[in-house]
């Protein structure tokens, strides 16, 4: 999810045009009354702490209506509102370009927000800089790796979902060929391809996975063409690491199977939908806000939550999945949740035959951060210049 930017030209230009207004009207997306209190900020130098509600702000890369990445973060924001009610006051700014990140984050800090979440990789340096200027404001950055005394990072483990989906896919395929529509060959996406394949191989050793890169997080027409090509080449169960529902709908049209990604996509393809791989940022956001309210929040940390912490899940498993396979998937899900199953446990062999992780060894976070290969069973080579 890290490169979740690469907007098409028009989006970039539009956001530039609209940003001045958007930044001035921070808070207009909120439902609570009296947003005017936040807008003009006559005394922008951080107001003194008071028993007022804790002001928390989110910076989004996309629109909250993207049905994917930003939508999921906004559900997390709503979960914070639901949990803390009057004790917090939330704000968000959507469609913030990386180039504008610093100004928007600084605006939010100077308007008295005491906790600020930025939800895309590219805000990393902007956040670090603003964090230095506002030592009494807490900053949280999704998917990054730079921290400070008042800045920490958080992420989710999508490969937990991908592994369980792999088990389902491996049980459903008739051609022993799976298809994956990838965005960019970065470690996160490669982890998901590998976990998907390894999950499938755990129930069906003959599995091959074909990968098509579309070089975009979001291009429904191209995603759809990629899915069609994978199906034409014999893949009958597809997973995607892109943002739209196009792959799922293409599978539906062809009478094949696919999964939802990032959010519940079951309604888009009643027959093709096998399960949805979701991310729930709510638990982490609630924890973070609670720590700030309690005064226990600490910077310099990296938190990566997955299935055990309730951040990732595979939901809405289809009736089409045979009972035995569904049980296997559920068992894997439970084992991951209990911490007894780590999808990346050796031996992990790449598709050139080289051992990447010795037998029975569990992958460290450092290992996972540097995945740059396909596991055995995935066809083709990882594009160079990852």
């Amino acid at each position, binding site marked *: 999810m890290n490169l979740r930017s690469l907007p098409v030209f028009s989006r970039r230009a539009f956001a530039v045009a609209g940003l001045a207004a958007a930044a001035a009207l921070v808070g207009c997306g909120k439902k609570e009354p009296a947003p005017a209190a936040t807008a003009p900020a006559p005394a922008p130098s951080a107001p003194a702490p008071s028993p007022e509600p804790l002001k928390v702000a989110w910076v989004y890369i996309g629109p909250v209506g993207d049905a994917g990445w930003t939508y999921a973060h906004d559900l997390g924001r709503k979960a914070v509102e639901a949990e803390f009610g009057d004790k917090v006051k939330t704000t968000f700014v959507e469609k913030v370009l990386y180039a504008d990140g610093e100004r928007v984050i600084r605006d939010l800090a100077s308007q008295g927000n005491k906790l600020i979440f930025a939800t895309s990789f590219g805000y990393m340096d902007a956040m670090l800089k603003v964090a230095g200027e506002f030592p009494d404001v807490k900053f949280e950055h999704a998917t990054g790796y730079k921290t400070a005394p008042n800045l920490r990072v958080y992420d989710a483990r999508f490969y937990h979902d991908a592994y369980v989906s792999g088990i389902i896919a491996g049980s459903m395929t008739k051609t022993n060929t799976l298809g994956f529509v990838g965005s960019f060959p970065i470690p996160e996406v490669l982890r998901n391809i590998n976990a998907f394949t390894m999950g499938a191989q755990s129930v069906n050793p003959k599995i091959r996975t074909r990968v*098509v890169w579309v070089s975009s997080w979001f291009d429904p027409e191209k995603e759809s063409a990629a899915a069609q090509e994978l199906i034409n080449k014999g893949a009958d169960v597809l997973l995607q690491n892109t943002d*739209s529902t196009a792959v799922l*709908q293409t599978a539906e049209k062809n009478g094949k199977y696919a999964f939802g990604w990032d959010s519940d996509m079951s309604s888009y393809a009643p027959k093709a939908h096998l399960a949805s791989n979701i991310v729930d940022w709510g638990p982490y956001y609630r924890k973070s806000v609670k720590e700030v309210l309690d005064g226990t929040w600490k910077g310099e940390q990296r938190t990566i939550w997955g299935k055990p912490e309730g951040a990732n899940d595979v939901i809405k498993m289809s009736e089409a999945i045979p009972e035995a396979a569904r049980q296997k998937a559920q068992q894997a899900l439970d084992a991951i949740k209990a911490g007894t199953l780590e999808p990346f446990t050796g031996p992990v062999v790449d598709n050139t035959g080289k051992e990447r992780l010795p037998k029975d060894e569990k992958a460290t976070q450092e290992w996972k951060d540097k995945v740059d290969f396909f596991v055995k069973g995935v066809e083709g080579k990882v594009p160079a210049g990852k």
Partner: protein
Amino acid sequence: MNETALLINTALASGTTLALAALGLLVNERAGVLNLGAEGMMLVAAVAGFAAALTTGSDTLGFLAAAAAGAALAALFAGLVIFLNTNQYATGLALSLFGYGLSAFLGVSMVGKSLSPRQTYEVPGLSDLPFVGPALFSHHPMVYVAIALAVAIAWFLYRTRAGLLLRAMGENPEPAHALGYPVRLIRLGAVCVGGALCGLAGAYVSLVTAPLWVEGLTAGRGWIALALTVFATWRPARVLLGAYLFGGVTVLQLSLQAQGVAISSHLLTMLPYLATIVVLVLISRNPAFIRLNMPASLGKPFRPGS
């Protein structure tokens, strides 16, 4: 063999978006008006078409609504550049940005909605033929509409008096004005036709290829269509060829990847652009031919009586 047929099928289907939009832009550019707002018109039309198809359940009504929405935006643009003589480049860019924002705003409630199950189309009698059946005769009707439009536009431009008049608007409108032709009204009509076809292209994405609505759905196809008209030297047949070539190479590179061919996907991603530009530049490399076909008054405002 069968795979090749399926490849051709996907190539035609994905080239149709560009073909529809670029043919529309060709018409209004032939009349001397450059509308850089293609992307904005496509987006607004895509959401309008999606909303119409969603509420009425009819794709036909969806396409009609999209064409109307595209034409309406184009008329707005025409009003500004033709009658108020605003700068065509700046106004077109503004229309693109405006259309992006407007479509996002109108589409908020459409995100996450899905249309009734899409049907497959087959030309009776022909779709059962080996190879050519699956390659050429199992398409959405819009694919054939695009081809018919290319033929119709070529015939109109080069074989009819009205077409000659339209081209005169793009070459040198003063004589036509002196002869009493309503230059500005003819240009208005051409721009609206351009908008309507861009509208069909937008709805083709939101109703057929995607089929869904999300913000920024067309992902820059409008800009590619604009470039295509230039590289195709404003000739309908070449526009069609360029669109299919672009669609074909896009699909081909995805197909190569699906086969596990070890070529950098970054390189492959460039291929459609490179191949389309190279081919169209080669067939149109004669400078005299370019001069002959480029509307001489493209982008220039016309002030009657000045």
